[in-house]
């Protein structure tokens, strides 16, 4: 005879499985009187029957009730005779509905009293059961969201670079901290075959798995574009056209793309609506500004391309908006002006720029800050001149200052050159002054770095292209010898380059720690016998010092127990000849 209606309250919805469970419970309590079980039904929040039940939470004979109520109609249609509202803490949590008695007699006052008493007991129990179900549903939802965040984090962390590229002469530092609701930040370093490196930082709008998937797609497109050797503007143009058809609505990607030549410091860059990176040097801060629409918004976009050269000691910062849009407890934003001021006052010391910015952000936001968005920071700093005149390497400075005094052997590359007791261009000699001193790690290929340093330092002299190339080759060969024979490819032992000038000449001193055992210079003075080499009577190698001496006006070699130095001299005016082969 009993039926049970599982619609409880105006705010909650029980799911079907729990409703069935409750139905079973109701059936159990009505064991011997089963006639029919009504289907679960919803009561609209504005149904007047709710107000009626709340005002009179006792057994109601449905046939006698007159209300314009959809629920009442439904109850009548289901042949419900008696309804007992279940009210807990002023809220309707359910109904006990009964059809006709088996005896077809009306329900007695005793029946109603018993049912009212039952309802008083059942309502709070039912409410508790409902709350447990709601909490279980919420827990499942939280678990689902956590799982999604976990997947998003996994995608993101899998695709961020595991290792930083090795860029001698540069310091590359990165920091990535996802917000709890993982955003779509990404950064990447893409090596080109010719030694250049692509630098990427981007941000996908939206969060979670969809953003992570768009980030993964964007990254793949950028990488494949780089392999095809497109310029930064072309890379972004292609990425935009490929992303546009498939990107979910209201989602787009901001992205900065640059290609760095680590030898020259030359950077070409383009920007698809990303926050403008900053460059800074000795208190001066400037933007790397190029315009372009974010990726995925409109097809057929073109991206402005700019280029610049990063000089020694200069740095750039690529970042995502999680930094500048962070808020403090007063809801003030970190903002661009603060970032610019911080970069302008940053002094390179023990703390790198990223740690410095993180500390400043932490001070700004306070201890209890809940991070609002992902934070990505990438800094790239070109090594400052190892300032032997200052304090960078006191040991090397000492070594260079004492070179002439430590002289053990000095050889002149040409018989007609007078032997001297010191290098021609000594920093202590009148008329010579040191322009720059650099150090390069003793690693294969770093002669290109030495060439770039020298070329950059002597740029103000406006030497003819031919002379520059001659000096470049001589510097490269001398540096290769120093790396290989002097320092035995030990990257911990640098090759030192000192560039000096006088009114008449430029000198480059290239020193290694090989001492007297370093380069077999004596064997190399004679012009190699190419006929013997072609006849395979001699090794095809052995051109280095011969090339050096033919590329510069003077070459001197100085060795002592600790140091081996080659001095290259290029006359600035007059007879700017290159020694012809004998």
């Amino acid at each position, binding site marked *: 005879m009993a039926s049970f209606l599982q619609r409880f309250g105006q705010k909650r919805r029980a799911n079907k499985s729990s409703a069935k469970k409750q139905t079973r419970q109701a059936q159990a309590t009505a064991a011997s009187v089963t006639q029919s079980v009504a289907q679960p039904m919803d009561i609209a929040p504005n149904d007047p029957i709710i107000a009626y039940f709340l005002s009179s939470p006792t057994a109601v004979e449905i046939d006698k009730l007159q209300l314009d109520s959809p629920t009442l109609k439904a109850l009548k249609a289901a042949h419900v005779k008696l309804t007992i509202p279940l009210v807990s803490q002023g809220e309707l949590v359910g109904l006990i509905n009964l059809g006709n008695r088996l005896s077809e007699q009306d329900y007695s006052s005793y029946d109603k009293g018993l049912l009212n008493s039952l309802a008083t007991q059942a309502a709070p129990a039912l409410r508790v059961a409902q709350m447990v179900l709601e909490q279980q549903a919420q827990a499942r939802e939280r678990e689902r969201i956590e799982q999604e965040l976990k997947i998003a984090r996994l995608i993101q962390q899998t695709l961020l670079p595991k290792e930083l590229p090795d860029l001698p002469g540069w310091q590359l530092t990165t920091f990535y901290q996802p917000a709890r609701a993982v955003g779509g930040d990404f950064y990447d370093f893409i090596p080109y*075959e010719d030694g250049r490196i692509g630098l990427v930082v981007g941000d996908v709008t939206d969060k979670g798995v969809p953003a992570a998937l768009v980030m993964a797609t964007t990254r793949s497109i950028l990488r494949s574009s780089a392999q095809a050797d497109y310029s930064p503007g072309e890379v972004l143009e292609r990425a935009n056209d490929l992303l546009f058809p498939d990107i979910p609505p209201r989602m787009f990607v901001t992205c900065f793309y640059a290609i760095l030549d680590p030898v020259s410091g030359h950077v070409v860059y383009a920007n698809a609506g990303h926050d403008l990176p900053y460059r800074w040097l000795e208190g001066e801060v400037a933007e790397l500004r190029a315009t372009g629409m974010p990726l995925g918004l409109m097809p057929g976009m073109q991206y402005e391309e700019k280029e610049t050269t990063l000089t020694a000691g200069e740095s750039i910062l690529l970042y995502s908006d999680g930094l500048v849009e962070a808020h403090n407890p007063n809801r003030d934003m970190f903002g661009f002006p603060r970032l610019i001021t911080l970069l302008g006052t940053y002094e390179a010391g023990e703390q790198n720029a990223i740690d410095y910015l993180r500390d400043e952000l932490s001070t700004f936001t306070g201890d209890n800050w809940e991070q609002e968005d992902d934070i990505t920071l990438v800094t790239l700093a070109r090594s400052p001149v190892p300032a032997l005149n200052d304090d960078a390497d006191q040991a090397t400075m000492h070594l260079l200052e004492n070179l002439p005094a430590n002289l053990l052997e000095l050889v002149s590359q040409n018989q007609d050159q007078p032997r001297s007791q010191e290098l021609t261009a000594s920093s202590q000699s009148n008329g010579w002054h040191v322009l720059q001193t650099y150090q390069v790690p003793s690693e294969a290929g770093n*002669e290109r770095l030495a060439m770039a340093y020298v070329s950059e330092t002597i740029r103000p002299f406006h030497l003819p292209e031919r002379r520059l190339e001659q000096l470049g080759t001589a510097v490269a060969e001398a540096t290769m010898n120093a790396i290989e024979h002097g320092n035995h490819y030990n990257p911990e032992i640098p090759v030192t380059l000192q560039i000096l000038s006088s009114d008449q000449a430029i000198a480059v001193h290239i020193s290694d720690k090989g001492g007297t055992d370093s380069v077999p210079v004596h064997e190399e003075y004679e012009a190699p016998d190419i006929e013997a080499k072609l006849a395979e009577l001699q090794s095809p*190698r052995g*051109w280095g010092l011969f090339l050096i001496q033919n590329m510069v006006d003077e070459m001197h070699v100085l060795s002592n127990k600790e140091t081996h130095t080659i001095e290259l001299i290029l006359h600035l005016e007059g007879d700017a000849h290159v020694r012809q082969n004998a």
Partner: protein
Amino acid sequence: MSVKTLKASVRHRPSVSVVDLHGEITAHAEHILNNAYAEAEQRGLEVILLNFDDVHYINSTGIALIVSLLARARKQHRRLLACGLSDHYVEIFQVTRLSDFLRIFPDETSALTQENTDEA
């Protein structure tokens, strides 16, 4: 500093096999350069042209590699030509006297034209 690799490809013209070189000729180029040269040799033509048009750096080890190729060509009675060298590397080929044994042309067209004229 990252090491830059050489890329090489081989084309065959009617009487000349052309080895196009891209990148840098340093110690790291040895394998690729020798393989490309071997591929060019297989056609059996008497003349092999090394196209340096896209080569921007040759160091002393690279010079040694070219000397080795030249020695190999001479042993097999082949002629080796070069084209596309920048003025600086033309000067280096002259200083090293490589140019005494390996004819240098400004570009591929002039090399092939001269070669055809010589043949005729």
